[in-house]
């Protein structure tokens, strides 16, 4: 019973966590905790075969399938807090409490008597005993599950299959479409700007800066923006001022050789010209060109 009293609070807390966490991935991980705990309880309850099957089928297969679908559905899958039906949450909790009360009353009115235990039934091995029953009394149900599994596999393939209705766009069509977009909507035909290509940070979650100092929204991934993990660009714009000040100073690379000084000379020229551009065009033509 020690395993039970350790695992039961963990399971209840993890199951309650599924109710309250916002992201589907966290719910899946909490469900994994519950399922592995249940597997341990199966082992305690003298069901070693179900212990193995629970870990292999539930934690190994079904939860992995859940995680794959969470990844495919993506970051927009987090739950919305807005109630579409008024008072639904309160009523749902009340209904759950009602069910709990009914179950508690029902459980309090039964007496289970003495536990027989599985020593006799498990004699000669749990797996062998299960196989004896499965292939004698339940053999028809067992064969029917094969039809069920095949139906499920075919159904999943049919549902996931997507018929191609239009011809596949090859490279000439893609290029023509890009030029058409450029002609009609003025959409830039080239690739999107790469993220964070400036002095100190080149991580993918820092947006690139336009010449007027504003962040380029197309330079970071849409997924990162949806997750809210994109760093703020104005702070890094201040960093650039720092870098420019440091480069403009006289002690640029005096201790190194000629190569280094040449490089610093190039660097000191470049920010000054860009600063002039910034002063002369305060949010004017320059962003349009670089977009």
């Amino acid at each position, binding site marked *: 019973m020690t395993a039970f009293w350790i695992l*039961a609070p963990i399971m209840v807390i993890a*199951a309650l966590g599924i*109710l309250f966490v916002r992201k589907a991935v966290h719910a899946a991980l909490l469900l994994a905790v519950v399922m592995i705990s249940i597997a341990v309880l199966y082992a305690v309850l003298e*069901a070693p075969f*179900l212990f193995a099957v629970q870990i292999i089928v539930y934690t190994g297969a079904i939860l992995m399938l*859940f995680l794959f679908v969470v990844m495919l559905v993506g970051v927009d899958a987090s739950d919305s807090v807005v109630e579409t039906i008024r008072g639904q949450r309160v009523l749902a909790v009340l209904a759950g409490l009602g069910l709990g009360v009914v179950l508690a009353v029902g459980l309090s009115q039964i007496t289970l008597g003495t536990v027989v235990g599985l020593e006799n039934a498990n004699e000669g091995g749990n797996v062998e005993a299960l196989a004896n029953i499965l292939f004698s009394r339940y053999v028809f149900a067992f064969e029917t599950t094969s039809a069920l599994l095949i*139906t499920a596999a075919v159904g999943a393939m049919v549902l996931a299959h997507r018929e191609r209705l239009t011809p596949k766009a090859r490279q000439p069509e893609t290029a023509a479409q890009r030029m058409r977009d450029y002609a009609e909507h003025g959409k830039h035909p080239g690739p999107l700007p790469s993220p964070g290509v400036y002095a100190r940070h080149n991580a993918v979650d820092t947006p690139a800066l336009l010449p007027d100092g504003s962040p380029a929204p197309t330079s970071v991934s849409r997924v990162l923006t949806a997750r809210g993990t994109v760093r703020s660009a104005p702070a890094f714009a201040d960093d650039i001022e720092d870098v420019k000040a440091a480069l403009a100073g006289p002690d640029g690379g005096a201790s190194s050789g000629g190569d280094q000084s040449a490089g610093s000379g190039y660097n000191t020229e470049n920010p000054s010209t860009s600063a002039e551009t910034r002063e002369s065009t305060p949010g004017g033509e320059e962003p349009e060109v670089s977009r």
Partner: protein
Amino acid sequence: MTDVTPYIVLSAILFTIGCVGVLTRRNAIVVFMCIELMLNSCNLALVAFAKQHGNLDGQIAAFFVMVVAAAEVVVGLAIIMTIFRTRRSASVDDASLLKY
């Protein structure tokens, strides 16, 4: 011999939590996870009763529940994927075309 009543009580608690989850959560995947939680709690009760009565029919029933749950998850997740592909949303409230 230990008593199996705590297992049955735990199973009832987990079933209730799963039921509330199905009723409150909006994300179809999380609703599906709560259904899995309810199935698992039923399995726990079945295995506990198998020990109580000293025969293996309860474990066989739990085994069949697992098989059916696996098939159900495969088809259900494929349906969720299809709905997400057409509607760009995994919320159960958005799929309301058949409402009226």
